[in-house]
């Protein structure tokens, strides 16, 4: 084991704040919490005679522990390495390989989105996926869009060229499942007089790392560095609308994969709302918001918190006239990307988010807004209330009516 991990291990003073704040450990005795599974078990497993604990799969990779830690221990780094070693030793699961590759699955699924969605909604198919692969049958699968973001981007009337350019990294969801998020982001950026560049669609690699496929995740990260760095060198910022993609680009490529030049990319990556808020603060066309008479509950995704950039979406939403925004502030929703899809974790994932769902039901909003589409999926599933990315609301406030497809 290399030295950076050893120093992570030495930093822990055993205060237990991480475990006290862990959304999983507080809901199940089956997960001993980040202190145990992180620094403690890492210290144990340096003795290579000892086996590994399978309960590491119950770490949902939300990073709440790292925000709680007063010693700056990169617990997720320890856990990612642990999970990787466990799965390498025990053999990687097909299910986890599928869940870890949303981009690849989406490329296949989007070939004929209608047929794929039909098949994936079939109860017999779901039963088979549940039994055969371990994907919870109760969990709605995200539908694939008939027209992905790239196709839309290419077919529409191209805006005038602008000297101000930004690169938009939509990630898998905004590319294949919910391209309306991507369309809103592009519209807003263009409204702010930026010319948007879309790199070739590619997964950020975070789901792979979270499922134990570290080498594949590193390869994916390398591809993204190759795709994005030429733009960064020209001084173009990289915008992400998915908090998990943002976390991968901002920190994981350097901390977990230790890739050269990851730092120069990271320094130029901005969450969409983070970027827009900066523009607004600089006096860019922030004005011009129209009334949006809605009652919206805002949920801050864990991976946005982990970026340490505050709540830029919330601040922007609060500026929209007539829009009533209520911050929920009840912690993790429990979905955590692929975590909530897994048969053995489906119920737990709903239990983790129970407080959040109850609070949302109390608020009884028209809509929930959250930057993470995985959180949105979970919240809608649990509460029956629609959930959208803030970019969609901001786009509407800017007066755009979604074109008919």
């Amino acid at each position: 084991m290399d030295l950076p991990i050893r120093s992570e291990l030495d930093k822990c003073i055993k205060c237990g704040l991480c475990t006290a704040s862990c959304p999983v450990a507080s809901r199940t005795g089956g997960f001993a919490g980040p202190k145990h599974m992180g620094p403690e078990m890492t210290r144990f497993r340096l003795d290579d005679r000892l086996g590994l604990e399978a309960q590491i799969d119950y770490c949902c990779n939300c990073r709440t522990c790292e925000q709680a830690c007063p010693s700056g221990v990169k617990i997720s780094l320890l856990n990612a390495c642990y999970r990787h070693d466990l799965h390498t030793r025990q053999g990687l699961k097909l299910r986890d390989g599928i869940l870890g590759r949303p981009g690849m699955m989406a490329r296949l699924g989007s070939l004929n989105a209608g047929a794929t969605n039909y098949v994936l909604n079939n109860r017999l198919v779901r039963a088979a996926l549940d039994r055969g692969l371990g994907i919870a049958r109760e969990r709605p699968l995200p539908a694939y869009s008939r027209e992905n973001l790239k196709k839309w981007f290419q077919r529409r009337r191209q805006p005038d060229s602008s000297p101000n350019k930004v690169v938009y990294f939509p990630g898998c969801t905004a590319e294949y499942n919910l391209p309306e998020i991507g369309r809103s982001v592009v519209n807003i950026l263009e409204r702010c007089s930026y010319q948007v560049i879309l790199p070739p669609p590619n997964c950020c690699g975070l789901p792979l790392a979270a499922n134990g496929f570290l080498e594949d995740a590193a390869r994916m990260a390398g591809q993204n560095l190759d795709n994005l760095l030429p733009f960064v060198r020209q001084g173009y910022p990289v915008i992400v609308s998915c908090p998990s993609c943002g976390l991968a680009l901002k920190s994981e490529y350097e901390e977990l994969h230790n890739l050269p030049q990851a730092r120069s990319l990271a320094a130029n990556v901005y969450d969409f709302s983070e970027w827009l808020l900066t523009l607004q603060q600089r006096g860019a066309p922030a004005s011009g918001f129209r009334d949006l008479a809605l009652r919206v509950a805002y949920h801050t995704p864990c991976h946005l918190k982990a970026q340490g950039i505050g709540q830029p979406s919330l601040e922007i939403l609060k500026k929209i006239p007539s829009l009533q925004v209520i911050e929920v502030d009840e912690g993790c929703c429990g979905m955590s990307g692929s975590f909530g899809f897994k048969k053995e974790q489906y119920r737990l994932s709903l239990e983790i988010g129970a407080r959040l769902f109850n609070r949302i039901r109390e608020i009884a909003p028209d809509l929930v807004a959250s930057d993470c589409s995985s959180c949105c999926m979970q919240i809608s599933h649990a509460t029956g209330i629609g959930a959208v990315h803030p970019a969609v609301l901001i786009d509407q406030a800017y007066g755009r009516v979604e074109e008919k497809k």
Partner: protein
Amino acid sequence: MEKTDVLVIGGGATGTGVLRDLALRGVDAILAEQQDLAYGTSSRFHGLLHSGARYAVNDPESARECRQENAILKRIARCCVDDTGGLFVLLPGDDPGYADDWFAACLRAGIAVQEIPAAEALSLEPNLNPALKRVFRVPDASIDGFALVWANVGSAAGHGARAYTYTRVDRIIVRDGTVSGALVTDLRTGEQRQIECRFIVNAAGAWAGQVARLAGCELKILASKGSLLVFNHRVTNRVVNRLRRPGDGDIIVPQDTVAILGTTSVPVDGPEHLGSSRAEVDQLLLLGRDLVPGLDERRVLRSFAGVRPLYQENGGEGQRPQDGRAVARQFALVDHERQGVRGLITVVGGKLTTFRLMAEQATNLVCVLLEHDAPCRTAVEVLLPEATAAQVRQLQRYFSPPVSQKMAERLGRADLDQLLGILSRNGWKRQFVCECEQVCLAELEWRATGSSWLRLGDLRCRTRLGMGTCQGTICAARAIGQLYQDGMLDLGRARRLLGEFLDERWKGNQEVLWGDQLRERLYARNVYLNLHNFQKEADDYGL
């Protein structure tokens, strides 16, 4: 009045080894130890089970003894031995000629030494100095001194022997030039009593001179202090020795969850000088980083020191060699009859690795004197039966596989039965009292009820409670709370034991307070002194 054939004085590896040997040969024996078992040198060393390679050049006789005993202990004491294997590493700047001499000497001593390519060594131990010149594999291993001593006593007790801890020998009774017994004090109750015996084996290690004097005999023991550092994690997975003439800071031993770097060698006046100085700590760190670059930046949990009792044959000419390493590490067997006391034997010197051989030879002598004809069986009888696969499966109902594996290794078959019994009655006692070392409430309960103890530190030595990263911050209060709840302590004693335990842990931290360990210790102080107001409580209650 208690009667026995042989009274063994000293509850270290040698004394408990003698007790076990006597018991296995059917000789009735009692052991008296003034503190807890393994209080002295048997727990204050790096934990290296020597292959003999370290002594091959300077002391071929010791090397051969170590080689034989190493093989025996790996066979009979698997409960206490972690067969890590060892490496000897030739660093740039160290004499390459010595490596050749050493290799030849190892072969002469019959030690299974094998040179491996540098690249292979670095892939086995990636933290080693990448500039290393040559690397040799030897059958070194890591041994747990506490576990060994307890296993010896457990095995001896199974054959009828008795061991009394916190029992100080005040006087050896000699009648007509022959030992007839000893006057002992139970330090817990203050009661004095007499134990009648025909022979006394003085195995008091660094205290052997003092014990001999109780019978009016002179015994010259040189005390050489060795300081060691405990690192927060296993820095290497194998014993790593620096290949050069044995010196300071040239051994790293993985010991359970930690690694120990040692040692220094400083002449001291007696066995009670057990602190290590900041200068020694600095010296060790500087030397250690030659073997493992960056070792001086890794977290050090504590420093400690032990005293090597070195026997001086010429009986007190009074010279004190500057380096204790110059004195032979072989052991000595002294029959005090030539000083006019029949029935008193001292066995002293040697190393932990050769404790069994020392015990065997001492016991041989006792048996000759007793005219008791029985062969030694300590080399063939397994010390502590290992946990069975069924027991490990049962454990896994309560704990994850790696934690079960660790517990099973630590406890052995008989203790594991007790632990499983407690767990089946009180499943909630699976909760960990010490998370750093994974000690559960059931294990604490079994050790607290199944053995005699005085201090929380005694339970620490039997379980590893408080030996890990937090050095007792979290587990000390939990353990005391549980013992109190289980009715084993009253409130006053609970407070006293807690304070005493924290003070003891604190003492070993004082020379290593920087970086992460300093943060940890400040956290501990804040938890106890500010958050729980422990000092004020203690003052208020006059504790």
